[in-house]
């Protein structure tokens, strides 16, 4: 019986986030859209009607080159008769994988370093912050290009490059949050009660930075997806992996970017919509992190 009357923690981030959704239509739209993308990403293999490299022929035998959208090929075909719809579907998985893996790496590294720096302070903090400064001074795209050249183009290297250069932001933001949390009386109370550093970091500080970290993670997901697309577009991507950036890259180098709008627009729109949905969700998260931004 006790269980039934359990109190809900109305301050919990999830609660605030969900109740925010009720008011913020854009955020709701973002969540729904994002879930749709995730669904497509997870089941992309099942959903894609064709392989990314399959060639399609007319009944008479000719190749279905550059066909505008039709029932058979909802987004039309490429210059060598490939199904763009399937490519876009399969690209969803790549985008989500790159985005989430990179963001995960970034946020884990960034928050661990941020928490350590902010919590311990002193020379540890100074040292870590100098490392952060160092990474702040490295230009992103040039670095990714060089790294891609050093390690050869592959999707993993892009994830690595994004992670290497982006954890700094998270670390910095988490650190300043931790600095203020560490001064809260309830943290002091925990120390007075005898809690060790690890316990404080894990049980007290971490839960408080998680909403912020999630928010940063959302931005990082976007950043990583955008980075992958940009790097692929410049030709430093992984040509063996079907990704939106890669589709646009092939589209651009094939010379049909202007003529075949059905080839240019869907991958671009996919990027826009995925990123937009995450931004909307992030905005709602932002309201969780920063109550001032909440709508009354």
């Amino acid at each position, binding site marked *: 019986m006790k269980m039934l009357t359990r109190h809900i923690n109305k301050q919990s981030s999830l609660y605030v986030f969900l109740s925010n959704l009720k008011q913020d239509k854009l955020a709701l739209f973002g969540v729904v859209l994002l879930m749709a993308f995730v669904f497509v990403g997870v089941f992309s293999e099942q959903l894609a009607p064709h392989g990314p490299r399959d060639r399609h022929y007319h009944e008479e035998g000719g190749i279905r080159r550059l066909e505008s959208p039709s029932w058979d090929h909802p987004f039309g075909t490429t210059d060598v008769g490939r199904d763009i719809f399937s490519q876009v579907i399969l690209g969803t998985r790549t985008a989500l994988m790159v985005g989430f893996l990179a963001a995960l790496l970034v946020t884990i590294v960034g928050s661990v370093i941020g928490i350590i720096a902010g919590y311990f302070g002193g020379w540890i903090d100074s040292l870590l912050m100098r490392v952060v400064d160092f990474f*702040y001074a490295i230009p992103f795209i040039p670095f990714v290009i060089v790294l891609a050249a050093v390690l050869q183009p592959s999707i993993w290297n892009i994830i690595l490059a994004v992670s290497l250069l982006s954890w700094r932001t998270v670390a910095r933001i988490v650190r300043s949050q931790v600095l203020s949390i560490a001064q809260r009386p309830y943290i002091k109370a925990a120390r007075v009660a005898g809690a060790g550093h690890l316990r404080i970091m894990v049980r007290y500080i971490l839960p408080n930075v998680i909403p912020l970290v999630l928010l940063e993670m959302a931005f990082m997901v976007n950043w990583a997806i955008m980075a992958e697309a940009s790097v692929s577009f410049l030709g430093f991507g992984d040509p063996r992996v079907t990704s939106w950036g890669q589709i646009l890259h092939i589209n651009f180098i094939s010379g049909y970017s202007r003529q075949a709008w059905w080839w240019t627009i869907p991958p671009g729109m996919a*990027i826009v919509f995925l*990123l937009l949905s995450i931004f909307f969700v992030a905005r709602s998260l932002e309201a969780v992190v920063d109550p001032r931004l909440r709508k009354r």
Partner: protein
Amino acid sequence: MLPYIAKRLMVMVIMLFLIATMIFLMFRTMPGDPTASMVDPSIPREARQALLERYGLHESLWTQYQIFMKDLVRLDFGNSFFYNRPVLRVIGSRMPATLILMLSAMLVAYLAGVLGGAWMAWHRGSPLESVGVTFSLIFRSAPTFWIGLMAIMVFSVMLGWFPAQGMRSTGYTGDTFFEIFVNRDFLRHLILPSIVAGLYFLATPLLIMRNSMLEVMSEDYIEMARAKGLPERRILYHHAARNALLPVVTAGALFIGAAIGGQVLIEVVFSWPGLGREIVQAVTRSDYPLAQGIFIIISAIMMFMNLVADVVYAFLDPRITYR
């Protein structure tokens, strides 16, 4: 203030050396030596060896590093393998194009972003606010190269309003900075790329300004300003916006640094002869000195902008004093 700046500059120099070391090592571990792209495959092997020697690439890594560092101290980035001229001059000839494009993009973004952000915060909850946020986020979600391609398609090719490619009309004469950059022809070429880049940047000042305004508007001194009977406009611009601007300015300076490196895509799409395109080419052709040089210069600019951000902040906010 001055000692503070001096100290920061000192730290900057140390950082630059670290970055230079990192980039040096990265290039040396890159597969494919520069001669591979320098000579035609039909050229004999001995020739390639001779080339390596000419550029000092046959030396041990440590010796190469020492030479590189010694030169760096003298601000000598060496000669570009490909241009056959000092790296600094190659960079110098490209830098203005990149800077101007970027600064005008920032100008577009900041003008629209700051005014729009302030307006949005003041008119909190109006439908136009959502529209503004969504608009800026759409452009932040769209890859610049993609928007750039679309823009060329629509505004240059279909409507013919702006030139599609390059920084000026073919065969345009003029040698001095002013002749090259201060004229209508150049401006016409600048408009499209700077708007495309500006739209991408827009979300940053817009959202920061909005959030910062919301924050400032809940400050007591705004209520106090109201209680003083000041007109709304004066409160908005003189008190709220002025204070809300602080984080925007900082973000801006940091952003300039980040934008320099990110300009590549715009430059490729618009055939803009800037530094971004140069570094891509330098990397693909293993033109070590040039790529290293550009990388280090961009890093230096980024760090410098960081410093500028802090200094400007101190100027805008009397509470901050640096020692």
